[in-house]
């Protein structure tokens, strides 16, 4: 009798544990863990394999990369492609000069566009988020509507405007076009961020005699730094990735960004593909490292307002 009672009590306890959330997680753990690992491996393979493949080829010798079946790991692993395209060790070829200059152009164009975009967007987003004025809804709506404007709408006119101002093949033309394209998204990100900041912060500053501009500079901008960082990083990445607009707005190495140069090297079909992959890896390294290190700002930026 005593045994039976003890037995039933034990089974009751086991039942209760097994039906609770902890128990279920424990019971299903190995299978569920395995399932999750498999799903993650598939997602990561899909996301990363092409990137891995480019790195694999770029660290291979030409004969190593040309083998059949393919080597999934460089054998032998060499850095000759990188030395060659970076012009290290005197093995001079035209590629290193083009790559170096185009990287500098990319930095100037995307960096310049990022700075101008973010500065203009901060002022505009502050006005939209905090100030009352006539035509606010109309202006805000029209600016955001240009996010739906495809490149088609502006491609040819922008080229002709820049040509008529003799700005084709200048940094200025590229930066102006980028800024006009990136502003709506930056404003949207910052507008949403400013709206999460309590108004009491500025009101305290107003009581102390601050002007709206003073409140913006001394209160809003420091507090909104994560939002500003998100807008800035996204503008930089968008600028770095541009291809069609620089293809028509730049005509030689003095302004062509790295995307245009990598495409041109690919089209020539003379550069060995191990070197080409090294060029691609270097062109992708800047946005790649930014995305890995600052991904939380990117996530915060691209989801701004989308879930409200």
């Amino acid at each position, binding site marked *: 009798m005593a045994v039976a009672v003890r037995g039933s009590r034990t089974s009751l306890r086991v039942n209760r544990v097994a039906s609770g959330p902890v128990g279920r997680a424990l019971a299903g753990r190995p299978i569920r863990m395995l399932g999750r690992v498999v799903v993650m491996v598939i997602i990561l393979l899909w996301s990363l394999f092409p990137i891995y*493949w480019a790195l694999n080829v770029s660290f291979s010798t030409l004969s190593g990369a040309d083998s059949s079946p*393919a080597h999934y790991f460089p054998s032998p692993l060499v850095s000759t492609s990188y030395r060659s395209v970076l012009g290290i060790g005197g093995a001079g070829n035209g590629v290193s000069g083009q790559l170096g200059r185009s990287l500098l152009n990319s930095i100037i164009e995307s960096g310049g566009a990022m700075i101008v975009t973010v500065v203009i967007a901060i002022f505009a987003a502050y006005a939209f988020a905090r100030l009352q004025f006539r035509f606010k809804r109309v202006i805000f709506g029209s600016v955001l509507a240009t996010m739906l404007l495809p490149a088609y*709408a502006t491609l040819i006119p922008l080229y002709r405007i820049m040509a008529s101002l003799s700005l084709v093949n200048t940094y200025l033309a590229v930066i102006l076009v980028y800024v006009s394209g990136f502003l709506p998204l930056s404003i949207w990100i910052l507008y949403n961020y400013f709206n999460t900041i309590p108004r009491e912060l500025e009101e305290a500053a107003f009581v102390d005699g601050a002007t709206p501009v003073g409140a913006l500079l001394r209160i809003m901008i420091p507090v909104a730094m994560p939002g500003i960082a998100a807008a800035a990083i996204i503008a930089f990445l968008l600028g770095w990735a541009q291809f069609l607009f620089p293809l028509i707005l730049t005509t030689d190495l003095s302004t062509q960004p790295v995307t245009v140069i990598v495409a041109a090297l690919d089209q020539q079909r003379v550069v060995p593909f191990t070197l080409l992959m090294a060029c691609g890896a270097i062109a992708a390294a800047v946005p790649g490292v930014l995305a890995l290190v600052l*991904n939380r700002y990117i996530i915060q930026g691209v989801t701004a307002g989308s879930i409200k």
Partner: protein
Amino acid sequence: MTAVTAHPARRGRMFGGALPYILLSPLVVFIGALSFVPTVDTTVEAFFRVSPLNPPTQFTGLGNFRALFASPAVTTAWVNTAVYVVIGVVLSVVLGTVIALALRQRFRFRGIVLALVILPWALPAVVEAVVWSWIYDPTFGVMNSALHSAHLIGGYHVWLGLDRWLTIGLIEVVQVWQITPLSAIVILAALQSVPLDLYEAARVDGAGPVQAFWRISLPMIRPALAVCTVEALILSLNIFDQVYILNGIAPLGSSVMLQTYLTTFQNLNFGGGYALSLLMTVATAVLSMAALALLYRQPGAE
């Protein structure tokens, strides 16, 4: 004390309400001169014969459009672009949802996985297309090698440039690979904002995970799905980089954007380029509005 409190009011009056307009003026100049003026210009010039090497510019009415519809290369590009759009929108939104569902629950290393999943979106599309062109390459490509090792193909294939639909499909894979992370992140954020007690209530009512997805998750993430759909729609209507690299200028896999580029900047037929641009701008607006009207419904607001 009174002087201090009077300050902001007086300053406010001093600006005379001009401050918002001062803050907005750079924006208005940029968007006005470089977005609105060009759009109006495209709309007007589409009805003119514009050829910089062969002036003068003349009004031709629908002449540019008639010439476009008579061109087989343009017709091919229209049909191709429609296929690019359908594959791009459907695959990126479905895959984005699957990835978001897989990443919804917290687990160790989720932050790292998320950072890695975003990578294809952050890298330049044209560089990615160059990488993929060597993956698809008939002699050096890993695709042939891998499929051959798995005994799925007997010999090495030429993947691009022979069969129209295969070429389009493989090019769109490259674009889907790039834009899916964006959908995944937006949908993931939406999924995480769904109150957990809704799922708890559904579980009590006996709903399984599949039912919970259709009855709770899906209605709640509809706005996010709408955003992703419109985003993928615009990106695939504009597809250029991947086509330029993987298809070249051949009509086979050509897109309308490639055709616009060739018409305008290779053939210097600006009028034709304008007409194509206007048609695509209108198409983008109509399709985006339709997608938003169909999908963008706030949860609960039936």
